[in-house]
C-alpha cells in the first residue's frame, strides 16, 4: 500500500475518508447539539443549525424529579464492582494459563465459547433463580451477571499482555531467590500495569453500556443509565430533549475512557487478537 499514489487517487481517498468521518461523527454531534436546545428549537421544522444554547434538558435530567443521577450512580456502582470481581477472577487464571499453560488451548477455547452465548438465553433461567434468591433489583445482581459477559474477555486480554513478558525475566527472578508471589507482584504486575488498567476499564465500559440484562434484572432501585434513558420513551410522547441529554451524559464517561486507553481497549474488544 506504500507505493506512489496519483493525485486523483489521493483526492478520492481523502474524500472517501471525509464521507466516512461525517457518517460516523454526525450522529454524535447531532445528539449533543439537540441536548443543548430548548424544547421549541428541538421541535422546529426545519431543524435549526444555529440556536441559543439552553441547559433546560440538563437541569431537568439532574433534578430529583427525573432521578437520572441516581441511575448514573447505579451504573457506576454496578460497573465498578463488576470490573473488580472480574479482575480478581481473571488475573490468577490468566497468570496460570500464560505461565503454566493450565488447561491448554481447550480451556482457552471454553472461555471463548462462553462469550458466544446470547445473553437473552441465559436471562430466563437466571431470572427465575435470582427471583427465588430475592436478588432481582439489588445492587449485587448486575455485577455478578456481567461476570459471564466480561470474564472471558478479561482472561484473554490479561493473558495476551502476560504472554508478551519474556519468561526469562521470571526465571532470573526465581534464580535470585524470589518466591512465586514475589514474581507476580514485583515483576508481572508492574510490567502489565497498563494491561490491568485497560482490562478494568474495558469491563467497566461493557457493564456501563449493557442494556438487556439491566432491563430484565432491575425494577426501581438498581436501574442503570441505559435503562433510564430508554424509559424516556413514554406511551404518549418521546421526550427527545431529555433523551439526548441523558444519552450524552451516559456516553461522556466511556468516551473519555476511550480517549485515554484507546490502544489497549481495542485489544479487549478483539480478545487480544489485535496487538
Amino acid at each position, binding site marked *: 500500500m506504500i507505493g506512489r499514489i496519483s493525485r486523483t487517487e489521493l483526492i478520492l481517498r481523502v474524500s472517501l475518508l471525509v464521507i466516512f468521518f461525517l457518517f460516523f461523527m454526525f450522529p454524535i454531534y447531532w445528539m449533543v447539539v439537540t441536548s443543548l436546545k430548548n424544547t421549541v428549537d428541538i421541535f422546529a421544522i426545519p431543524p435549526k443549525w444555529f440556536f441559543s444554547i439552553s441547559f433546560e434538558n440538563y437541569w431537568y435530567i439532574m433534578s430529583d424529579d427525573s432521578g437520572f443521577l441516581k441511575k448514573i450512580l447505579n451504573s457506576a456502582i454496578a460497573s465498578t464492582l463488576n470490573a473488580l470481581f472480574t479482575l480478581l477472577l481473571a488475573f490468577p487464571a490468566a497468570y496460570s494459563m500464560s505461565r503454566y499453560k493450565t488447561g491448554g488451548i481447550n480451556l482457552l477455547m471454553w472461555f471463548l465459547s462462553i462469550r458466544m452465548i446470547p445473553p437473552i438465553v441465559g436471562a430466563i433461567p437466571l431470572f427465575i433463580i435470582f427471583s427465588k434468591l430475592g436478588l432481582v433489583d439489588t445492587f449485587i445482581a448486575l455485577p455478578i451477571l456481567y461476570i459471564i459477559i466480561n470474564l472471558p474477555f478479561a482472561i484473554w486480554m490479561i493473558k495476551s499482555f502476560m504472554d508478551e513478558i519474556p519468561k526469562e525475566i521470571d526465571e532470573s527472578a526465581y534464580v535470585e531467590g524470589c518466591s512465586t508471589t514475589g514474581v507476580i507482584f514485583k515483576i508481572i504486575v508492574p510490567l502489565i500495569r497498563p494491561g490491568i488498567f485497560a482490562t478494568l476499564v474495558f469491563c467497566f465500559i461493557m457493564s456501563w453500556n449493557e442494556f438487556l440484562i439491566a432491563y430484565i434484572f432491575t425494577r426501581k432501585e438498581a436501574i442503570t443509565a441505559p435503562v433510564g434513558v430508554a424509559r424516556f420513551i413514554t406511551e404518549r410522547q418521546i421526550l427527545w430533549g431529555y433523551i439526548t441529554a441523558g444519552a450524552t451524559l451516559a456516553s461522556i464517561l*466511556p468516551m473519555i475512557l476511550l480517549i485515554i486507553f484507546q490502544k489497549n481497549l481495542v485489544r479487549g474488544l478483539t480478545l487480544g487478537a489485535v496487538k
Partner: protein
Amino acid sequence: MSNKLTKILDIKRVKNYPLYMVIPAVFILLLLTIYPFIYLIFVSSHIWPISPTLPRIFLGFGQFTYLLQDPTFIESLQVTIKLMVVGVTIQIALGTLLAILLSTKTRVTSYFTLPFMIPVFISPVVVGLIWKFMFNYDLGILNYLFEIVGIGAVNWLGTPQNAFWSVVIIDTWQWTPFTTLIIKAGLDSVDPTPVEAATVDGASRFQIFRHVTFPSIAPIFTVALLFRTLDAFKAFDIIYIVTRGGPGGSTYVLGYNIWKTAFYQNQLGLAAAMSVIMIIIATVLAFILVRIMKGLLERE
C-alpha cells in the same frame, strides 16, 4: 484414580497451584452457565408463568413441536439470519475499505482513527435513540436533508422494507468500526517485502491485494467475520429501542421474540424452548469460530 484425586486435593503440593488459580474462574462460570442451562431445559418442558403462584404444567417436548410449526417463530428465525447476513456483509465490505484508507500511514490518518472507534464504545441504547431521532419522519434531520437534495422524505421506520434497512444502517454505523479495527490491524502487520517484490515485478495493485496482501490477512479477516456473525445473532437492544420488532414483523429478531414471549407475554416456558433452539444454533456457530481460532493459535 483416587491416588490422583488426593494429589490434586493436596493443598501443600506446589505443583497444584496453577490449577488452583484457574479454578475460581472456571467454577464461577460453570455455576453461572451450566446450572442455568440445565434449568432452562427443565423450564422449556413446562408451561411456566412468571408469577410463582400460578401452576406449572408439564408438557415434555410439546412446546418444541409447537414452535417448529409456529409461523411467527419461523419468521423471526428468518429475519435474524437475514439481518445477520446482510448486516455483516456490509460491515465487512465497508470495514475493509475503511481499513485500507486508514492503513496508509500519513499524519492525517493517525488523527482520523480515534473518532472512528467511538460508536463501538457507546451503549447500543444511545445509538438506537440517536438514530431513531434522526430517522423521525417529521423532525428527523435525514428527511430534512433528503428534501433539500430533492430526493424527498423517506418513511424510514414506517414500512417493513425500510425498517429492516434502517436497522441495518444503525447496526452498520455501530459495528463497522469494529471490523475496521481488526482488518486494519491485519493490514498493519503485513510484511511489506513481498508487496514490494510484486510491485517491482510489475503486478497491478489489485493483483497485489488479491494474491499477496489478502492471503496474509485472511485469518484475521475470518476472525472479524465470525465475531460479527455471532454478535449479530444476539441482536436485541437496537431493535427494542427503534422498531420493537415491527412493522409487520420485519425486524422481529429471535432475541426480541424471546424477550417479548418471556417478559411481556408472561410465557417463560415457551421462551425457554425458543432459547434452547437459539443456543443450539449459537453453539454450531461458536464451534466453527473456535475451530478456526484454534487453527490460528496453533499456527503461531
